[in-house]
């Protein structure tokens, strides 16, 4: 569809924004409400419970989760560096950083998968108790968001990168927007990690 939608790439003067940037922030606002509702549910269930185990008491691995936190933070840096590379006209560098971001995502998911596996091995399932119900649901939904981000990042690393040749400014904006989403996923984990594993 080649309808010319205004302000797709160049920002609108009075708002200073291009369309997708406003769009992604609105989407992130709804995501704040989504994870907020889940956090709220967690707090309600936990404060209403007669007792609630500490993360590490129930077999959650703090070292693994700390490693995972580092992995995700690193992927956030590589993501923003990917965008910065495009801003500096260095496509090769962009490719490298975006590739690293994708790999970091893979790493995160592998560690997560291993964590889930150890839980299942010990017969800890979402149905075991509300602690595990909360743990699996929150990390599971977060994990789905990671996968979604990786699909987008993978596309922009691969077939989507064609746009750099035809419309570099628009492509750079797309990476910025994808980056905003990815940083948000990191942000959610920054709160999930202490509340599930450490408190």
């Amino acid at each position, binding site marked *: 569809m080649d*309808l010319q939608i205004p302000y797709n790439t160049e920002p609108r003067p009075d708002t200073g924004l291009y369309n997708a940037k*406003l769009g992604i922030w*609105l989407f992130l606002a709804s995501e704040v*409400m989504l994870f907020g509702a889940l956090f709220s549910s967690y707090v309600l269930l936990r404060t209403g419970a007669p007792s609630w185990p500490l993360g590490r008491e129930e077999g959650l691995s703090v070292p693994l989760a700390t490693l995972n936190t580092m992995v995700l933070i690193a992927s956030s840096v590589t993501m923003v560096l990917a965008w910065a590379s495009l801003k500096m006209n260095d496509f090769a560098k962009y490719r490298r950083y975006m590739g690293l971001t994708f790999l970091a995502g893979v790493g995160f998911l592998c560690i997560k998968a291993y964590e889930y596996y150890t839980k299942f091995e010990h017969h800890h399932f979402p149905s075991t108790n509300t602690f595990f*119900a909360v743990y699996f649901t929150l990390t599971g939904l977060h994990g789905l968001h990671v996968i979604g981000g990786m699909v987008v990042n993978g596309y922009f690393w691969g077939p989507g990168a064609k746009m750099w040749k035809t419309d570099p400014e628009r492509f750079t904006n797309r990476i910025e927007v994808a980056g905003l989403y990815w940083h948000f996923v990191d942000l959610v984990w920054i709160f999930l990690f202490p509340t599930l594993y450490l408190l």
Partner: protein
Amino acid sequence: MALVDEHAHPKHGHGEHHEPGFIGKYIFSQDHKWIGIQYGFTSLVFLLFGFTLMMMMRWALAYPGKPLPLLGMMLFKDMGGVMPPEFYNQLGAMHGTIMVFLGIVPLAVGAFGNYLVPLMIGAPDMAFPKLNMSSYWLYFCGGVAMLSSFFMPGGAAQSGWTSYPPLSDIAPSGQTMWLVGMLFLIFSSLLGSANFIVTIVQLRAPGLTWMRLPFFVWAQFVTSFLLLLAFPALQAAGMLQLMDRVAHTSFFLPSGLVISGQPLAVSGGGSPLLWQHLFWFLAHPEVYVLILPAFGIIGEVIANNTRKPLWGYKSMVYAITFLGFMSFVVWAHHMFMTGMGTVMSTFFQTTTMIISIPSVIVLTAMLISLWGGSIRFNTPMLFALAFLPMFAIGGLTGLPLGLAPTDIHLHDTYYVIGHFHYVVAPGTIFAMFAGIYFWFPKLTGRKMSEALGKLHFWPSLIAINCVFMPMFIQGLAGVSRRLYDGGASYSHAQGVLKWNVFMSMGAWTLAVAQIPFIFNLFWSIWKGQKVNSNPWEATTLEWVATTSPPLAHGNFETIPEVHRGPYDYSLPGASRDFVPQHQLQEA
């Protein structure tokens, strides 16, 4: 097909223009106008289906224990054609869900909003056409999932449109499909609302400042924020209930729950109230989503058919913005009977009373707008005029529900059903009819028949009041809602049972009254009176800056430039009684 002007293209070239094939044009269209029509058609079908479900319910209410005509022997052979209570509950839950989520919101926002907003703001399309297309198909898939629940073992969702646990957690598998459908619908809505907000903020034509926006656009703007920020709570709750049902978690199941003498084999530790909080956190803003687009439509129809600017436009804009904000802090007035303490109850009663003020401001402004106007009593205006007292009744009857002492008596009775139906049925749905009659010429270049319009309007107005007014009587007598026999087995209901037959007759008459409308709608597409591009002599951009139907590609020959407010009707010194928004000086 006169709905899309395929042959009208802007005269100037615009580079390569790949003509999409049939699938790209009609199935996976990215044109907001066609997507609006897709939403419109689909939602009207769902509304009709939801209406049919209700007509079956009204049989059981009027004649409990009597076999359902025609369908009875097909569906309930073993019961001799009599509707079992479980089926009545399915009808109840699905009627509510379908009307609200598959009918009204997609019609009000997906159809009217999608079609009109870009045109009214002078934009070539929505900001994200591909996203728009996905929103429609997600809605469609959600609808299919919802309806498929009827075919699940145990039947469709049957725990009310509110799906309260623990009942909904242990209900048959139709409830799972309800939840899956809901997840699709909510996702569709989230993408759509982001699209609307970006479109309205970024794509307004030059000169179209915020206070020059048609009131309809403001209404859609506030509505989109409500959808964006409130729906995620139900998305979360839906996911948690799905986990409860599929993964056997206990988010909403308390410890020690015993069902039919058997303790439930779950971990327990959950909270049924958690569901109610999350559900109503969405569902209260949702009811404003139901009414705001209606306000928008009525505003446009009134301004046009009084030949005067809307009185108090600015107040109305501030009122609906305030309303949108307040709608997030009133939800627990649906939960007064859950055992809450006085402080929480006082808080929510206070916010609920405060939120009634902006609605009064809007209604009053619309009433005053009529004063001194040259009123044209065409079909859209008749529906718009009827909307005002009908919405007033709905709003006023909300007051005793919003105050806890009276709510103690009225909660979960027919009074509630009467209240919300007045706002939604002779309220919002009448506004939808007004909008369809009003903008039909924009979509098709033809007018709907006025005679058939009046034949639709008058019986509908009378019948709809016959259906819903007696509900207040029954509710005050204490008749509970969701009773499959309409209260027949309760002694306190005996005195008001006679209204059941009356209301059912009203409902069936209402059904018959829609026939002229359905016929009119389709007949007029091909045989309606041909009109010019602005038959109502309106001022707003969708009427004055493009053809009827609008240009297929990009809506406008050139993007208009706006020089005045949206309602320059009867401007002193002007040569005509309306001045288009993009006209620099009056001729």
